[in-house]
């Protein structure tokens, strides 16, 4: 946390041309210890047939469980590529030339309709409030540029997605002040925790510009309760700050009724001065399993933010080709309804498989209801209840079990021993192998403890 490191350009050669602070800063986070996990995976990736003893990647929140639905849709509705080709030369021409930062109207309408569907129609989305960005990463950074100045802060509840340290701070110069949450109440955000975080910032002379939450939460894999959202909005109104809700996993909630989007709360509010502090981030990377397409959106109830974000999106436009390719798919009601329903169901079953498998080994997880991962508690295995103890255990899991999972400390969790474990980026068979490795490890451990 804090400002980027001082420049150290003058190693040996005084004539070496200088780089910027942004370029030499380590705010990108890729030098942090847990990146060793990624490296280990890259060097020895698990493969069902070719490398069954390799490292299984359980640190990447990617959704592969519903690829078959995408494939069959694209093959069926897309004979000879007609879905993706522009119709006639006029269509291609528009596609090739189109670089309007407003984005294709049909695509924005399709996104709005998809977002409504995910929320069971409990909130409406106006296509003209949708700003397109090349991914949610870009959306979060862009919003940070717009809502906060360098050295201002956003309050973010812990544990949070490690990428925020980079996405919200690196180029923007904005700080993150954590809102500490703990297991005593399932890591839910409390009004007290909000106030404490705000006071902490104020005492350090840091101006708070907003709160950014992920709902459903990454890494918890759980939705934020409606009451907590209302309290949060109330807090933001009282402090006159913004509320950003990253709802990138909204379509991955196992039971639709358990998700309350901030959009539903705002839907019933007329007061513009309350509404216009609310902004939602969404993307097709998780729910639709299309991270390679780079499609993100900012949905803002603030006209000024919409206008500004749109102009700033020139730095991160969604390819016209992508918009074209996805517009029909996302507006196909039959497909989206079926996809959302089946995807949720499969994710739920995966979640149950892993949680029950872990339970058999005496490992508890936080009660989750969404997302592509579970939040596992290995506190009882720590040698010391410290960050070092946690990283030691993580290293054992990586080296001995050959499982790359994400340690809670990388998510700024205030309690040690929690780990995020992704389960949707692999086949069921691979998941079972991962569970088997855990079983074997726990077995060995039990034997050691018993003698």
């Amino acid at each position, binding site marked *: 946390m804090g400002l980027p490191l001082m420049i150290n350009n003058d190693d040996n050669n005084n004539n070496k041309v200088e780089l910027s602070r942004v370029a030499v800063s380590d705010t990108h986070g890729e030098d942090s210890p847990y990146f060793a996990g990624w490296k280990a995976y890259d060097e020895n990736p698990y493969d069902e047939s070719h490398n069954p003893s390799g490292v299984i990647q359980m640190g990447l929140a990617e959704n*592969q469980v519903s690829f078959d639905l995408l494939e069959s849709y694209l093959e069926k509705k897309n004979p000879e590529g007609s879905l993706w080709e522009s119709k006639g030369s006029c269509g291609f021409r528009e596609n090739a030339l189109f670089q309007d930062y407003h984005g294709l109207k049909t695509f924005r309408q399709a996104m709005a309709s998809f977002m409504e569907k995910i929320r069971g129609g409990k909130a409406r989305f106006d296509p003209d409030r949708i700003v397109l960005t090349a991914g949610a990463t*870009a959306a979060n950074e862009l919003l940070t540029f*717009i809502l906060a*100045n360098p050295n201002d802060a956003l309050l973010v509840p812990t544990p949070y997605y490690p990428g925020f340290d980079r996405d919200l701070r690196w180029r923007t110069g904005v700080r993150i002040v954590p809102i500490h949450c703990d297991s005593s109440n399932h890591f839910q955000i409390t009004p007290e925790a909000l106030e404490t975080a705000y006071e902490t910032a104020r005492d350090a002379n840091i101006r708070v510009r907003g709160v950014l939450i992920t709902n459903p939460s990454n890494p918890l894999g759980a939705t934020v309760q409606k009451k907590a959202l209302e309290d949060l909005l109330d807090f933001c109104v009282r402090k006159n*700050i913004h509320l950003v809700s990253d709802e990138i996993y909204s379509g991955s909630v196992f039971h639709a009724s358990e998700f309350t989007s901030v959009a539903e709360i705002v839907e*019933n509010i007329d007061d513009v001065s309350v509404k216009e502090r609310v902004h939602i981030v969404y993307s097709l990377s998780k729910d639709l399993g299309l991270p*390679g397409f780079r499609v993100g959106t900012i949905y803002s109830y603030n006209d000024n933010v919409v206008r500004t974000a749109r102009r700033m999106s020139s*730095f991160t436009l969604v390819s016209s080709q992508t918009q074209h390719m996805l517009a029909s798919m996302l507006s196909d009601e039959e497909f989206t309804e079926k996809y959302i329903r089946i995807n949720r169901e499969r994710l739920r079953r995966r979640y149950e498989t892993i949680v029950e498998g872990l339970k058999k080994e005496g490992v508890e997880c936080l009660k989750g209801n969404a997302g592509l991962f579970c939040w596992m508690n290995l506190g009882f295995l720590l040698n010391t209840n410290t960050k070092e103890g946690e990283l030691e255990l993580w290293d054992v899991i990586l080296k001995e079990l050959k499982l790359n999972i994400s340690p809670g400390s990388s998510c700024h969790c205030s309690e040690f021993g929690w780990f995020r474990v992704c389960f949707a980026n692999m086949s069921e068979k691979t998941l079972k192998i991962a569970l088997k490795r855990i079983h074997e490890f726990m077995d060995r451990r039990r034997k050691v403890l018993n003698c």
Partner: protein
Amino acid sequence: MRLIVPLQGVVQGRGGLFVGSLIPCCLFYFLQLYLKRRRSPPPPDSDSTELPRTSSRSSLFTRGNSIGRVRVSSRAAPLAKPPDSPYYIGLDRVKTDPYHRVTNRDGIIQLGLAESTLCFDLLQRWMSENLMESLMMQSDVDGGFDVSSIAMYQPFEGLLEVRVAFADFMSRIMGGNVSFDPSNMVITAGGTPAVEVLAFCLADHGNAFLIPSPYYPGFDRDIKFRTGVELIPVHCRSSDNFTVTVSALEQALSQARKRGSKVSGILFSNPSNPVGNILSRETLHAILSFAQEKNIHVISDEIFAGSVYGDKEFVSMAEVAASGDFDKSRVHIIYGLSKDLSLPGFRTGVIYSFHEDVVSAAKKLMRFCSMPVPVQRILISLLSDTRFIEEYMAAHRQRIRDKHFLFVEGLKQLGIPCAESGGGLYCWVDMSSLLTSYSEKGELELFEKLLSVAKINATPGTACYCIEPGWFRCCFTALADEDIPVIMERIKLLAESSTS
């Protein structure tokens, strides 16, 4: 008003005690109101974008006394205002009444956007024959379509195959004497993010780049908006055909230093925009020597490298840098397919740097602006189709050349000269003879007359920071041959009405 009247009354002896106590009460009341407004809320930074208060209805949520409208950051504020550069104003005006040779013959003809549609027929044919195959890659397992090949996370800097394809393509179109190493390359979603990412890597907030002017107006937005890096124009003159000289760079640099500005590098485009001239090997060498001497960076925006139609040979800065005399690590190239391959909608950009730390930082920054995987797949297929690319580039150059000739000839017949150019999708036109006054004001008046009377959008030199008034950039590569006489006729009428 209410203050003045009672005061007058008091002064003139009317009103007496009542007014005598009313005034101080009023004053006291207004003072309290003023102080209260000053106190809440107290933003240290100004936000000129705050909208006027509207009346609020009852809400579920508590609202304290000091709740105002929530603010955006001060750096976002300039973006909220409508653009004031004639470059953007002109583009917006065309949208209100765009020319169409059949359905809207009186509309505004767009000459302000550097886009080419000259070879769409070839691209369309390629797409219809190859798009499917390039996208719908097959699974090894069952031979059916494998969506994971386009759906999954891939390295943000671009697949190795697409970088290899770009490296090869760039080498071909830049004369074949320069080779590009794919590992020094990162692929982005457009030339706009390419320029911005480089600016973020090479300069801190408040530093500056020297930039030969006239320059592409979009750089103001691309470079300055979020990075806070300044652009210092280095004025070039028609006497040199607007080619930058080392003495001009020297002068600009020393003036910058006197002002306390730290210059981190030189940014220029080659072929240049808006003039369209090709920088000679000697000029490139001189720029690089200067940069070496001052220990600053060189960014060469070569986005029009494939759109060369004149006799002069295009030489990439990469070629000059590799010639061995220089510390290459200060050289960075920008490229993209928006101009040469007419695909601005696809969003294709390339950052090429000889500095490994810049490549490393740029790679990490690509998560904010990477090229989607399906587009990468299409481009791998397109750029490696060397037979098609050769045919396309030859046609592209020839057609620009032909159109250029027609356009420049048409202007010549009106007595309107153009700067010498050999590349780009535009020409740099000297309309000073049409100015009512040889000044920026005169030029902007002409710009407005061109827009509203002649109904032509051409970008005035002022928008490009040109120091000589009267120059306009006219893009001609989206025109049909039959549009050109229409344009010339309109300019002729305007010229005649100005002199009469």
